């Protein structure tokens, strides 16, 4: 059914894209290493060759011919380098070629992922590679216009003859024995074999037929005579069929069967004849060089060279040692999402059961014990499911090395990228969303931040610029930080630009440094005037802001003229199931993450004091803590206004402690955290003190307090 085959094709394509991307990542790592150490080892060459070969094979299976052709030509180049064991390869140029090919492949795959045709023209790239190969072959004369593939084919044969140890078969073998009287009982045949269209390597297929037949016949001639040395043999076989002339005692049917056992044989014409000598002589005359070779038995062919045996043993040992390959399976993300949702619902349903109003007031020891066990198991389940979705951020960061390398080259700058916190695990959504913003910011750092070598020397800075990419886990959030030691942001310039574009939210004098720097995140800030080739292609930091917004993150920028810039991105781990304490304020129920709670109590009037500004504070064990009234903070109606009639919950975030005033504490509950809906992100909710939403057991929604956010406001 077409439906089935469509899904099959889709799956194949997904597999292809996945594997090719992996291969490319590996390839880039190798190239970056080669460039860093300025040397290309034999192992490197083999690996590059193998990866190109694999991509060529897979892409041709998927009928992406331009990629297949491009990788094929690179494969040829590296084959040559490998065979000739070239020492003086221009590393720079070669790596560039490979990087260019990678870019081409990525580009085509991108098209396919977007359901477009992979219609890129590979010719310019292939031409580039061909010329490079020609140069390698004739360092003095770069004008060689030979078809490099043919050349390589010839050399393949030559070279392999040299290195051949076990297999000594060089040309066509012929059985040739004298005709003796006993032969007269046998029958002579002529046969013509046609192979299926486009089954490829027809000369070798003909060779297979010869081999299959050899043991059953006494005399064997064939046309074309030369199957391997002659490039035209394949063509001749395809056009005219493969002719055989032989003598045998075996019955017709047997011989026909034998001819038929070869793969991809389409047509067999088998005829008993009285003599074929004349025909054979004709053919032999037509050939110019004819060699009569000893018949080689199979035993000889498989003769092993002791060195070869040793090499095999070494190979096998290596395989056994390389057992550190990770045991990984790839899982469809949709299945993971379904699993997450299901686990979330189990949490809610568990509450609905164990905290069911029907059970209020009953003595349920046995039930409670079972409920605790259920809770414990659910916790474990959650942890594991959560951890499956979490992926290390390392690989995403790692991709930036290539970007830095490219930018360095194109802008003639020297900057090195340092990465830390690679093991930090983040939800897959976040990984997906971070790629592009990171790319953009790293490009910015190189384009607008890091100065050229001369400028840096003039400023007394180390010639190599430093860009640092960090990931830090702060418990409830992940902090991604990009630091560069470049020329920093120009506060005045930014202010002027913002003024020009009517983007100033308040008067110049009232703006703090950080607020000014953050202006570059506003849509409409980056105008078309300052487009460079890489950053600001009409695309400013506002696009980064948008992407970060989507995952509920916040960006903050700081900078110092001539010292550098720091960009902090705080991303809440919103895909979570947390322990929360429910509190009520008027009609609303808020949830405070249990991890932030220190204690809670009913305050006494005598302990409540006011500071000079009129802000309420409470004395606890000799220390003063500010009080935050949620009804005032959120402009919502609370029922209780007198502090001593409500509850104070002491919370802490990064060294800052304060008290949240609520009407009442309802109870502890595990809640599923859902992010604030996309539509609402245009409003300032994130900075208002709300971290996300929680769906309670009774299907009501409770807003989760962002304790860290509120702490900052105090």
């Amino acid at each position, binding site marked *: 059914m077409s439906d089935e085959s469509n899904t*099959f094709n889709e*799956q*194949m394509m997904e*597999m*292809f894209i*996945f*594997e*090719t991307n992996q291969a490319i990542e590996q390839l880039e790592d190798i190239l970056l290493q080669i460039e860093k150490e300025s040397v290309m080892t034999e192992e490197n060459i083999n690996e590059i060759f*193998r990866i190109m*070969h*694999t991509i*060529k*094979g*897979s892409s*041709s*299976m998927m*009928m992406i011919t331009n990629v*297949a052709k491009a990788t*094929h030509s690179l*494969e*040829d180049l590296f*084959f040559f380098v490998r065979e000739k064991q070239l020492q003086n390869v221009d590393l720079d140029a070669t790596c560039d070629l490979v990087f260019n090919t990678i870019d081409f492949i990525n580009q085509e795959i991108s098209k396919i992922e977007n359901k477009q045709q992979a219609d890129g023209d590979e010719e310019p790239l292939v031409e580039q590679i061909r010329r490079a190969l020609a140069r390698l072959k004739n360092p003095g004369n770069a004008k060689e216009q030979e078809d490099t*593939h043919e050349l*390589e*084919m010839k050399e*393949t*044969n030559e070279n*392999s003859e040299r290195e051949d140890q076990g*297999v000594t*078969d060089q040309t066509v073998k012929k059985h040739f024995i004298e005709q003796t009287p006993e032969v007269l009982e046998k029958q002579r045949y002529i046969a013509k074999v046609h192979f299926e269209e486009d*089954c*490829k*390597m027809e*000369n*070798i297929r003909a*060779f*297979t037929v010869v*081999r299959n037949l050899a043991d059953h016949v006494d005399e064997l001639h064939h046309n074309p005579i030369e199957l*391997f040395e002659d490039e035209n043999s394949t063509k001749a076989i395809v056009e005219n069929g493969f002719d055989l002339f032989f003598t045998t005692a075996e019955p017709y049917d047997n011989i026909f069967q034998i001819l038929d*056992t*070869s*793969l*991809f044989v389409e047509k067999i014409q088998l005829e008993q004849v009285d003599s074929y000598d004349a025909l054979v002589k004709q053919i032999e005359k037509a050939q110019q060089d004819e060699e009569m070779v000893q018949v080689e038995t*199979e035993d000889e*062919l*498989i003769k092993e060279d002791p060195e070869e045996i040793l090499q*095999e043993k070494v*190979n*096998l040992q*290596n*395989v056994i040692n*390389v057992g550190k390959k990770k045991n990984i399976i790839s899982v469809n993300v949709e299945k993971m999402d379904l699993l997450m949702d299901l686990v979330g619902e189990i949490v809610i349903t568990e509450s609905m059961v164990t905290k069911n109003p029907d059970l209020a007031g009953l003595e349920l020891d046995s039930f409670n014990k079972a409920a605790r066990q259920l809770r414990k198991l659910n916790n474990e389940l959650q942890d594991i499911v959560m951890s499956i979705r979490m992926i290390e951020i390392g690989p995403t960061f790692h991709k930036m090395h290539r970007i830095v390398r490219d930018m360095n080259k194109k802008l003639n700058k020297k900057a090195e990228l340092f990465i830390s916190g690679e093991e930090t695990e983040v939800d897959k959504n976040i990984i997906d969303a971070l790629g592009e913003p990171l790319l953009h910011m790293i490009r910015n750092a190189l384009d607008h931040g890091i100065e050229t070598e001369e400028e840096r020397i003039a400023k007394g800075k180390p010639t190599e610029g430093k860009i640092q990419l960090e990931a830090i886990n702060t418990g409830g959030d992940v902090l991604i930080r990009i630091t560069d030691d470049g020329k920093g942001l120009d506060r005045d310039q930014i202010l002027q630009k913002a003024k020009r574009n009517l983007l100033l939210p308040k008067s110049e004098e009232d703006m703090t440094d950080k607020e000014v720097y953050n202006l570059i995140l506003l849509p409409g800030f980056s105008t078309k005037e300052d487009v460079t080739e890489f950053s600001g292609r009409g695309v400013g930091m506002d696009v980064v802001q948008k992407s970060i917004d989507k995952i509920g993150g916040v960006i903050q920028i700081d900078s110092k003229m001539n010292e550098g810039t720091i960009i902090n991105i705080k991303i809440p781990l919103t895909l979570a199931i947390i322990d929360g304490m429910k509190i009520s304020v008027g009609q609303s129920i808020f949830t405070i993450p249990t991890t932030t709670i220190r204690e809670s109590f009913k305050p006494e009037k005598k302990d409540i004091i006011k500071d000079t500004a009129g802000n309420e504070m409470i004395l606890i064990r000799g220390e003063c803590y500010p009080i935050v009234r949620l009804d005032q903070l959120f402009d919502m109606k609370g029922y209780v206004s007198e502090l001593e009639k409500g509850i104070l919950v002491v919370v802490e975030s990064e060294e800052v402690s304060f008290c949240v005033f609520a009407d009442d504490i309802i109870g502890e509950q595990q809640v599923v955290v859902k992010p604030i809906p996309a539509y609402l992100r245009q409003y300032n909710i994130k900075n208002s003190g709300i971290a996300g939403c929680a769906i309670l057991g009774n299907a009501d929604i409770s807003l989760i307090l962002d304790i860290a956010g509120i702490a900052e406001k105090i």
Partner: protein
Amino acid sequence: MKRVLIVDDAAFMRYTIKAMIEKKEEYEVVGEAENGAIGVAKYKELAPDIVTMDITMPEMDGLQALKEIKKLDPHAKVLMVSAMGQEKLVKDSIISGAKGFIVKPFKEDKIMEALAKI
């Protein structure tokens, strides 16, 4: 029921070949290997009826693996999977006892035809 062992270093190829083969009820893929050495080990372990063998692989290539398998079992039926440009290795494989070969890219009908004949 013909039991097949697929040996290829590209997961994509193993996946594709397996999917193609298993459409026919009389075939069952009993194992996969990502290099020649593992292929030989699996041959020993599983004793399949047919082996599809990729030619270029790391650790131990298809030709080597073929030879090893033939040593274990002279009657082993091995189908070499090759790409253009590997004529020498294909030829050597035939000499070393491979039953036949198929060239990438190939469509489903071609490989099924080859397997049926082997």
